[in-house]
Each structure stands twice: as structure tokens, then as C-alpha cells.
């Protein structure tokens, strides 16, 4: 059963979720997890909290917190009241708020990275973006299940990461959002 739970969590991001280590116990005690019913709430909440300069990160939930939405927001627990106030003003209600130290498993990273030699691919949730390393030119966009994926791909493939519009500016589906995360991760990895 335990192995099944770990496999299930890793299927979200293609990464194995590991039990907390001693080294990150301290960090975990400062962080909490906001669980939402719908992905759209996660996306709105993340935008609002980032605008308010909170250090938040969207992640895949550990199995014990899965509710049907594949994303949760990790946030600083010390800011819980302010965070909830911002969300309440936007009429967003988290299903649960859980201190990370109460979790058996950490949330998993959303990113899966694969190096193809001259090319680097980042998968975020259900979307993949691949760039040619030398010029940082986007050579492929795939994944999905959303109607705007071909549109996103047409607007991104052939452009460099610096020329390309942020995917979030092109599409507002979960695929556009996931692609934005992949794009930001590629920028972070390729341009420091």
C-alpha cells in the first residue's frame, strides 16, 4: 500500500517523493500547504500571493492530501492570517491548510527535466517544452488535453526563450499555466 502511494505521488511529476530528511526538518516547520478544490483556484491564489510578495510555490500534493486537484501551494506558515485574508477578499477558500511538519511526505516538485544532449526538455505537470541549448530556441511544445495547445505551440516554437511571449500571456487553461512553469524553469536553468 505504501509503495502504491509513493508510486502514485511520483506519477504526478515523474519524481519520487521522499520522506522528510533531518536536514529539511527546520525548513518544513516554517511552511504550510494550501489545498484547493479546483486548479483554477490554485492559479488565482498563486498570482495573488505572488503579487503580495509572499514566497509561495506550486507543487504536486503528497498522496494523503490529494483531493482531485493535482496542485497545492506551499506558503510560509507565519503569514497564514495575511494569506487567508488575501484569499478571502478574492473569495477563494482553501479546502485545507496543513503544516508541512504534519505530512508524511513532502509535496513533489512539478518538474521533470531530461537532457537530450543539444536539447533540454522540462515537463511541468502535463506540458513539455524543449529548447535547443545553444540559442535557447524553443523547438517543441507538447502535452496537454487543452484546446489551446496548438495555438500555444504555434506562438512559441521557433522563438528563443527571450523572444517568446510568456505562455501565460497566450493561454489561460491549465496547459498554458503548466507551460508557463516549464518556461520559467527553463529560463532559470539556462540563464541562471
Amino acid at each position: 500500500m505504501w509503495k502504491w502511494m509513493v508510486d502514485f505521488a511520483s506519477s504526478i511529476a515523474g519524481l519520487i517523493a521522499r520522506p522528510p530528511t533531518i536536514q529539511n526538518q527546520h525548513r518544513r516547520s516554517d511552511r504550510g500547504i494550501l489545498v484547493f478544490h479546483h486548479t483554477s483556484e490554485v492559479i488565482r491564489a498563486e498570482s495573488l500571493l505572488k503579487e503580495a510578495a509572499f514566497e509561495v510555490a506550486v507543487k504536486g500534493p503528497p498522496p494523503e492530501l490529494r483531493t482531485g486537484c493535482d496542485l497545492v501551494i506551499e506558503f510560509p506558515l507565519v503569514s497564514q492570517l495575511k494569506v487567508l485574508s488575501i484569499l478571502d477578499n478574492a473569495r477563494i477558500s482553501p479546502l485545507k491548510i496543513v503544516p508541512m511538519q504534519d505530512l508524511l511526505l513532502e509535496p513533489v516538485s512539478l518538474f521533470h527535466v531530461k537532457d537530450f544532449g543539444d536539447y533540454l526538455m522540462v515537463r511541468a505537470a502535463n506540458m513539455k517544452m524543449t529548447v535547443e541549448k545553444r540559442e535557447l530556441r524553443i523547438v517543441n511544445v507538447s502535452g496537454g488535453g487543452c484546446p489551446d495547445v496548438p495555438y500555444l505551440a504555434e506562438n512559441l516554437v521557433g522563438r528563443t526563450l527571450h523572444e517568446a511571449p510568456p505562455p501565460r500571456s497566450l493561454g489561460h487553461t491549465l496547459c498554458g499555466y503548466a507551460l508557463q512553469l516549464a518556461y520559467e524553469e527553463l529560463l532559470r536553468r539556462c540563464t541562471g
Partner: protein
Amino acid sequence: MTDNIDARGLSCPQPVLLVLSKMKSLGSGVIDVIVDNQVGRENVSRAARSQGWVVENENQEGDDIRLTLRR
């Protein structure tokens, strides 16, 4: 002279990367690519156009799709 790429059974982005690598080594010419799904067809076609190649022909062959790329 036509170069052939069999990208059946490969998941994205591997068909595209095979095609881009071949385009880079040839510079110009004709490449026949076989893929086994519509997503692969769209991705290879898009990548080819972005590199200045033309998708000259698309043929459904059973479950497979053969693309002829030219530059």
C-alpha cells in the same frame, strides 16, 4: 536522394529532435519521416516550418503517417 527517419514508437519530443538533427546535418534536401500519431505529425510539421522547410506531402499509411519534408 531521400533521407528516412522512422519515429514510430517514440514519444515527444524525440521525433522532433531526430528531424532537427537530420536537418542540421543535411542543410537542405528531402527527408521522409514516419510517425504513428497525430501529435507527432503536428509537432514535426511545426518544427520543420520553423526551420524553413516545407511539408511537401502527408500520407496516411494504415496507422502511420508519412511526411515528406523538403528544403
